[in-house]
Structure formats: structure tokens, C-alpha cells
């Protein structure tokens, strides 16, 4: 009889411990899976020039893909963006050298789009202009830019 009476508190402890464990597991998995928060791309109110350059970088990825497929780049799909006219993240870059770099980039970019035969080579020349300027002013995206080159 005593044995049976002892069963009551044991059962109580067992049931509650077991239950708390399984509940903890549920909570842990909730913490990992139920959050529906979407990843943030940039929480710092980026300046227009930074946004424009990100757009241009996406365009470059698209151009590279097209060229690798052997397609011709159409000027109407990739209009030149006058990024040097909008506000940069760091206004101290707005000096003669920056505008000269921008001019050289624009020249290479337009030449690439106008070319009928060697767009691949001219695309690489254009990406080279991005590298030159970023080596002087903003190293951050260099790794990404260098991935844009097409291996010849």
C-alpha cells in the first residue's frame, strides 16, 4: 500500500520534469524558427551615390551574365547613371581627381555599349575603371568589384 502511495509524488515529479523539458525544447525551437523578421539590407539611410552604385553593380552582374551567354549589350537596357552628380557618403571625395575618374569611367562605359564587336574586352576595361577609383576612395566593395571581371 505504501508503495502505491509513494507512486503519487513520484508520478507528479516525473510528469512535471518531463513536461518542462519538452516545453524548453519547444521554446528553443520557437526562438530559432518562428521569427518572421526579414533580413535588413542597409539600416543606415545610405546616400544617393551609394544607392546608385549598388544599382550599377547589379547592372554589371547582369551585363557579365549576358556577355558570358554571348549576347550583345543593348545601350537602352543600361543607360549611364550620372552618379557623380548626387550626394556621396563622404563629401570629402568630391575633388578634381574623383570627377576625372568619373569621366574616364563614363567614357569607357559608353564606348563598351557602342561597340559592336569587342564588348567583353571593353566591359573589363570599364570594370577596371571602377577598381581604379575605389582603390583611391573606398576599398570596401573592391572584393565584389574584382569578381565582376570576365576571365578571358
Amino acid at each position, binding site marked *: 500500500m505504501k508503495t502505491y502511495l509513494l507512486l503519487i509524488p513520484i508520478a*507528479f515529479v516525473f510528469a512535471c520534469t518531463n513536461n518542462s523539458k519538452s516545453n524548453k525544447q519547444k521554446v528553443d525551437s520557437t526562438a530559432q524558427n518562428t521569427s518572421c523578421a526579414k533580413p535588413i539590407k542597409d539600416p543606415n539611410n545610405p546616400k544617393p551615390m*551609394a544607392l546608385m552604385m549598388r544599382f550599377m553593380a547589379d547592372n554589371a552582374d547582369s551585363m557579365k551574365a549576358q556577355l558570358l551567354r554571348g549576347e550583345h549589350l543593348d545601350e537602352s537596357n543600361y543607360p549611364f547613371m550620372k552618379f557623380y552628380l548626387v550626394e556621396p557618403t563622404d563629401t570629402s571625395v568630391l575633388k578634381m581627381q574623383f570627377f576625372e575618374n568619373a569621366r574616364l569611367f563614363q567614357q569607357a562605359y559608353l564606348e563598351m555599349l557602342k561597340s559592336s564587336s569587342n564588348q567583353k574586352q571593353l566591359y573589363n576595361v570599364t570594370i577596371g575603371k571602377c577598381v581604379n577609383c575605389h582603390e583611391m576612395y573606398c576599398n570596401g566593395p573592391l572584393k565584389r568589384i574584382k569578381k565582376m571581371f570576365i576571365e578571358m
Partner: protein
Amino acid sequence: MKKLALLISISTILSCSQQAPKQDANNSNTAVDSAIINQQYFGDKITADSAKPVSELKNLIAENKQLTVKLTGKVEGVCQKKGCWMNLKNENGEKLRVTFKDYKFFVPKDCAGKTAFIQGVASTEETSVEELQEFAKDAGKSKEEIAAIKEPKKELVFEASGVIIR
């Protein structure tokens, strides 16, 4: 009487299984809700589970050139221009510079002091003087401090594909 004791035992097990979750879950859910509200995701959406402390990285990477790993640590500093890199600090005061894969996402410029979970690739690289100077400039260091950087540095760096800031 025996049957009664047996019955009480069984009903105790059953009732605990059904009732206890409500109370426990309420408390735990409050903590979970608060963590979820306070944490932000950047880049690929990752989970915080099984992240190793930044201090373990040296042992983990050992002789390997690269290591794909998930780490956690306190944010010590962030790029004050764009939020395009951050430093995590370990207990020994050593910093690990974290950049973000393909420059495709950024972290809040004011997240220093918070806890970060990072997933990506750790490697040992030589950082050039120009790069070190630019990192120092972005971190808001003085002209003298920037000019004092004259040697390249071989260091552990991390390229994150996903970040959680909590």
C-alpha cells in the same frame, strides 16, 4: 485503495502534461518574444544556435587556410561611414574584423556593445597598409593614428554571409 492510488498517479501524470505547459510557456515565451523583438537579421537569415565564441576561432581554424563557421561575440566597433564592417572582441581583447559577403548588406552604425552572431568564412589574410588606414579612417581614428599605420598586418578576418545583432 491500491486502485485509487494508482488512479491518482496516472491522473497526476496526465494533468501535469496538459496544464503545466501553459504556465511555463507563458514565462518562456515572454523571454523568447523579447529576444525576437530585439534581434535584427542582416544578409542570409541565420539562426543563433550552436554559435561558438569568437575566442575559440584560433583553435578552430588551427592550420586551415579557411573555415566555414558560426561565431558569436560582442561588437566592439563598426564602420562609421556605412556600417560595412564591424569588429568583434574576445575576452583577450583581440579583435576580429567582419566584412559582409559581396558588400551586399550592412549593419547599424550604432550596434557597438551588442551581441552578434555571424555565419561565414574565417581566413588568415594579409591586410595592406592602405586598407588598414582606410579601416582606421572609417572607424573615426585621428589623422595621427592613421599616419602611424606603416606595416601590413597578417590577421584573422571573417566574411559573413549572415548576421544577427541582439
